[in-house]
């Protein structure tokens, strides 16, 4: 069973509107989550993270929300820009001090001009 689930394989949003990408997790032991962005033919690049001591972390246009009771996190991008079009991966830090990352399958975001 997948530990990190991204149930929407794709999302299409108009430029200037909000993009909301969702992620659910099953493992409660480790409580540090990350979002990565991936363009074709490139490696994933780190976007934003959140630990369980917070329920929100904001960085410019990007905000991540964590709902521990629901084991759910979401990434909000506002306003969305065409350059945000990419695949977004949610990842859970797993393994304590070893810090292995377990990834979801990703959501492909398309921002239309």
């Amino acid at each position, binding site marked *: 069973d997948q530990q*990190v689930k*991204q149930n929407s394989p794709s999302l299409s949003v108009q430029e200037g509107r909000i993009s909301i990408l969702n992620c659910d997790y099953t493992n409660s032991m*480790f409580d*540090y989550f990350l979002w990565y962005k991936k363009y074709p033919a490139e*490696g*994933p690049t780190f976007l934003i993270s959140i630990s369980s001591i917070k329920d929100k972390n904001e960085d410019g246009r990007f905000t991540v929300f964590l709902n521990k009771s629901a084991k759910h996190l979401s990434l909000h991008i506002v306003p969305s820009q065409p350059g945000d079009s990419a695949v977004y991966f949610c990842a859970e830090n797993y393994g304590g*001090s070893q810090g292995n*990352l377990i*990834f979801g*399958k990703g959501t492909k975001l398309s921002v239309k001009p």
Partner: protein
Amino acid sequence: GAGVSQSPRYKVAKRGQDVALRCDPISGHVSLFWYQQALGQGPEFLTYFQNEAQLDKSGLPSDRFFAERPEGSVSTLKIQRTQQEDSAVYLCASRPLQGMNTEAFFGQGTRLTVV
């Protein structure tokens, strides 16, 4: 260089051939990870090193896969007797510290195609 470097970028191997994929992590990074990413999937964990010690190899799909990091810097992922199901992008990532709350930095990956 400033980032994680992987070589080659692309590799085409005939079925049954052995391949070696190289990863140069960011200088000074303690942790190094290998991931396999199949088409349409997220990166799947293969193995993890802390310095030269391979602490977790639970994700390696078969004994044809072998990874090493002998001096605690450069790492090599070797696949013996490649099969078509090995076709994927192999990603290497490094992390500066052992602790939890740091992000991993990824290389651009090696796309392996087994024909």
